[in-house]
């Protein structure tokens, strides 16, 4: 029942919904349901990037720790978003912290399991990256706007 539930959840997600049933079944084999309470640390900077999360419900803060100051929230993620991409890039360590702002329900996919299946089946790997890349590109575009600091005061005007 649980596996069937994950398959249904993934098949409705924009990244996975165009996968054929056989490919989806391969990914579902790496998946499990997850639950976090508000304030829970989902993963930590420099920790092993051993999972990618598909957020089903709730809000997650992606944070960067700073010395002698509270951490800075650089991005929040919400239902439908993917959390974690370091699992795709060696050395597979997280570059930020992730913390549950609210109660989180998510599907996690075991990164090693997916990487192994992709190595065994390059067509799966190609399909996975082809559908994940647009999601990552959207996030990158948004972050580019964010670093422009558009709302800061403009000096030298009237």
């Amino acid at each position, binding site marked *: 029942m649980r596996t069937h539930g994950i398959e249904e959840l993934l098949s409705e997600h924009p990244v996975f919904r165009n996968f054929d049933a056989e490919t989806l079944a391969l990914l579902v084999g790496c998946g499990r349901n997850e639950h976090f309470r508000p304030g829970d640390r989902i993963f930590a900077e420099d920790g092993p990037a051993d999972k990618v999360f598909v957020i089903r419900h709730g809000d997650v803060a992606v*944070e960067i720790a700073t010395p002698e100051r509270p*951490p*800075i929230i650089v991005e929040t993620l919400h239902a439908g978003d993917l959390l974690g991409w370091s699992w795709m890039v060696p050395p597979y360590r997280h570059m930020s912290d992730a913390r549950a702002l*609210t109660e989180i329900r998510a599907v996690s996919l075991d990164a090693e399991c997916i990487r192994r299946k992709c190595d065994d089946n390059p067509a799966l790997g190609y399909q996975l990256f082809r559908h994940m890349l647009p999601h990552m590109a959207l996030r990158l*575009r948004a972050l580019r706007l964010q670093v422009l600091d*558009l709302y800061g005061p403009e000096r030298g005007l*009237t």
Partner: protein
Amino acid sequence: MVKAVPPDPMIPRRYRVRRAWNEMEGVASVDLDPLDGPAVAFQPGQFNMLYAFGIGEAAISISGDPARPERLVHTIRSVGKVSAALAGLKDGDMVGVRGPFGTGWPVAAETGRHIVIVAGGLGLAPLRPALTHVLENRADYAGLTLVYGARSPDDLLYADEIKAWKSRFDTDVEVTVDRAAAGWTGRVGVVTTCLERALAGLDPANVSAFVCGPEIMMRFAVKSLNDGGVAQSSTWVSLERNMKCAIGFCGHCQFGPDFVCRDGPVFRYDRIAALMAGKEI
């Protein structure tokens, strides 16, 4: 009594500062009381030329309630000598006012539709009259959504009003900031990341969008609205240029074939899309 048009657009009228208050660091609002005659009606999105006597004049959007023109409210960010003088006005000070000038948000023409207001930073100020108008005439519109982006939680303009708008059952309000310290439980990310969600469940053919903020933000916000099915012909933006005469004579604010002071500041996006994509116009 409310008068429609001031007699001479080049002669400032005297206004007394009824009340001045700080909105946040470097940003203040003033509520002005007319001394030289009755209050002047304005359209949401129009601006006035405010004259700090002996220092200079600056174009400032009207941010008050269009149904109450006798309380003429402007929100000013201190960025230069003139705006610093205007943002530093105190209760009882005198200021010169020319206006109102320019085009407004088409709130009257867009009745029956779902209004999506997208504001970035101080761009909320020129949109507040439109928002106020829609809220006061809420039954005339299919829906109202505000998506507001600011630099940080400390930089949220009209924070108390945002709380009040959020508490209404007939209005969707989405606030996001570019960065926040731990403890902030709202969204972090640029406004464009909120638009897909804001449009979810809406018929894009019935959406009219009003967008104001830094020009880059507006360009990308319109693109996101467009990706969500909202036509450029149903999207309006408010442009900011260095204005002097405010009546289309001096040419300081020329934007392609238009003068922002006279033909804008509010433009329907499909009319200016090509210019918005150009460089250094």
